[in-house]
């Protein structure tokens, strides 16, 4: 394990029955780096991301986050997860509590802050994502873009070192996408380490330090946005970009 990296993945394997979805992935992510992952549907992007915080249990290999091997059964996975924020395609806000309580639940329950401190913090994060006035509403009354921004605020409230995003804008109406991407750009600028699965090539070009192309459970090609988008080396990459950029 190398101390220079926030996230280090070594020879990661994951199968569902006989379907080997991840076939040996190696990836290092430096602090403050923004990595965007692109690739065709079913290539294993979500599965990879979910292996990073053990929502899926890997079948082989190692995942080090902040120096802990999450595959090690002696590691307290709850402690590691506190440092990894995750944002889902379908937001997964808790409908049984207000926006504010969604954000304060984890910090309060895990003893990170008192209720009052957590609420003050939560309002700061809501302000950051531009939704301060929605603190006391039920999340079910929000639009998709607002929900996703609350979800980001909820993840940030645990003050994570790394943020994982799994297609955060795919379930949104086009006019909402900009708001969410705007918040993510801001986070990147502030130095957050981010791994983002996305179909938003514009965002990847503009924000990513590195773009990783997934294909059939393997990393086919990776590099700077210019390298991947302007000078793709692998025919699979070219093929994929042709399809997504020329629709």
């Amino acid at each position, binding site marked *: 394990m190398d101390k220079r990296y926030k996230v280090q993945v070594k020879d990661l394997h994951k199968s569902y029955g006989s379907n080997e979805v991840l076939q040996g992935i190696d990836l290092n992510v430096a602090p403050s780096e923004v990595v965007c992952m692109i690739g065709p549907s079913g290539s294993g992007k979500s599965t990879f991301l979910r292996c990073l*915080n*053990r*929502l899926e*249990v890997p079948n082989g290999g190692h995942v080090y986050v902040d120096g802990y091997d999450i595959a090690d059964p002696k590691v307290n*996975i*709850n*402690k590691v*997860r*506190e440092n*990894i*924020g*995750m944002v*889902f395609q*379908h937001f*997964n*806000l*808790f*409908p*049984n509590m207000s926006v504010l309580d969604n954000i304060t*639940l*984890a910090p309060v*329950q*895990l003893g990170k802050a008192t209720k009052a401190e957590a609420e003050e913090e939560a309002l700061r994060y809501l302000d950051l994502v531009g939704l301060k006035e929605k603190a006391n509403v039920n999340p079910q009354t929000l639009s998709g873009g607002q929900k996703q921004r609350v*979800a980001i605020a*909820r*993840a940030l409230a*645990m003050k994570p070192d790394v943020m994982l995003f799994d297609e955060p804008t795919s379930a949104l109406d086009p006019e909402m996408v900009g708001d969410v991407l705007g918040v993510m750009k801001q986070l990147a600028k502030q130095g957050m380490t981010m791994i983002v699965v996305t179909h938003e090539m514009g965002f990847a070009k503009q924000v990513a330090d590195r773009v990783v192309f997934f294909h059939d459970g393997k990393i086919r090609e990776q590099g700077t946005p210019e390298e991947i988008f302007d000078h793709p080396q692998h025919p699979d990459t070219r093929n994929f970009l042709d399809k997504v950029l020329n629709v």
Partner: protein
Amino acid sequence: MRRISWKKIFASWLAALAIAVGWLLVEPQSVSAAEPTYTIATNNTFEPFEIQDSKGGYSGKNPGIEIEMLREIAKHEHFKYKLKPMSFNGDLQALEGGQVDAVMAGMSVTDERKQKFDFSVPYYTDGVEMAVAKDSNIKSLKQLKGKTVSAKSGTSAALFLKKNQKKYGYKVKYFDSSNTMWNDVKIGNTAATFDDGPVLEYGIKTGVPLKVVTKKPIDAQPVAIGFQKGKNLAMQKKINDGIRWMKKTGRMQKIIDKYTKGNKTAKSATADRTILGLLRANREALLRGLWMTVELTVVGIICAMIFGLILGVLGITQNKFAQAVSSVIIYIFRGLPMIVLAFFIYMGVPNVIGHKVPLFVAGVITLMLDEGAYIGAIVKGGFEAVDPGQWEAARSLGLPYHKALTKVIAPQGLKIMVPSLVNQFIMTLKDTSILSAIGVMELTETGTVIISQNMEGFKMWLIIGTIYIIIITLLTWLSNYIQKRMA
């Protein structure tokens, strides 16, 4: 993930169960050294042997031949007794199971019963008699060819009818209680009925419009108190001495005459037989029964809810063993008819633990296991119906399994299951009536007892049914109100 120790939770649950069972074992039995107390099973009402008053007790002026006899014997022989009124079948099972020390229920001494039980000195002779409607001209068995006759199933009258069916060529219809059977003769469905002589004569004396046509009882048999075979010989001796003393001093005959001759015990024919009148006359008994039903329902639902939550939570863990335990328990107790479960707990379990299970406790445990299994399935289904994304979001924030469950999943799951739970609560209320089988004096059993005294089956069941509908309506309103508040 979900690395909480489910074995630990399961172990603590087992411990709680063990404590509950232990409490049953040490539940105190008041035994006074000077005056022993005997537990004696008897009938709710089996006129003229046992006649319950409107409160379900025997403290009235005419409690029945056997009750009056026992009262005098106990005083003379210096012992105390506790009566357990049940159905006759329940009496026999309780004696076999050791729930009671003796059965005093107008029990005929038959060869078959003698093999299982010891009997006291007989104090009465009981035989089958035949009765027909008042205006019928049937006078003998020979006139019954092709006609329908009736008897209570399992009685000596039923045995007699079966034995002689070929000879006289009648059809036999079986009943469970005398009053419905007699009513069937009254309205002309059956031509004649065969019943215990004293029961029949007492009924006629108090207003049942039938007449006895047999000259003397058929198959006369002695009536005596039954004991557990070869056990408690001191008690057997006291009771036998008492009966001999009663007979010798003429006290026994005096009691028998009181109930079978003259008009001393006749019920007033002028009693108000309208529904309002019946309500007024039985107000106290009905309220007592209703209260018992409500008490059983509330305590039963609370226990079943706790049990069901445990089953549901075990059912959704990722621990295969816990899941299997939950599924098997749900499968068994949903599959078992509740009446079998009630008999098993009240009559069967005491054989194993060597200790009586109090009636109310047996009722609550039955409800807890049976309704709890259904609630367990509802809880499991409700939790599983919550979007798995909710688990993932909660766990990825670092919340441990139990916090994710209690703060995020359970509140949403409970909301999903509220309609099914309300339905199950209503079922629980209705199912308490099944506990009448083991003699719990709830609303239904109260109704049975009242009807055995006043023969007003139609009106009384109408009253009882209406009471159930009213409390179910109240419960439904309450739950609708709560659901609205929750939404």
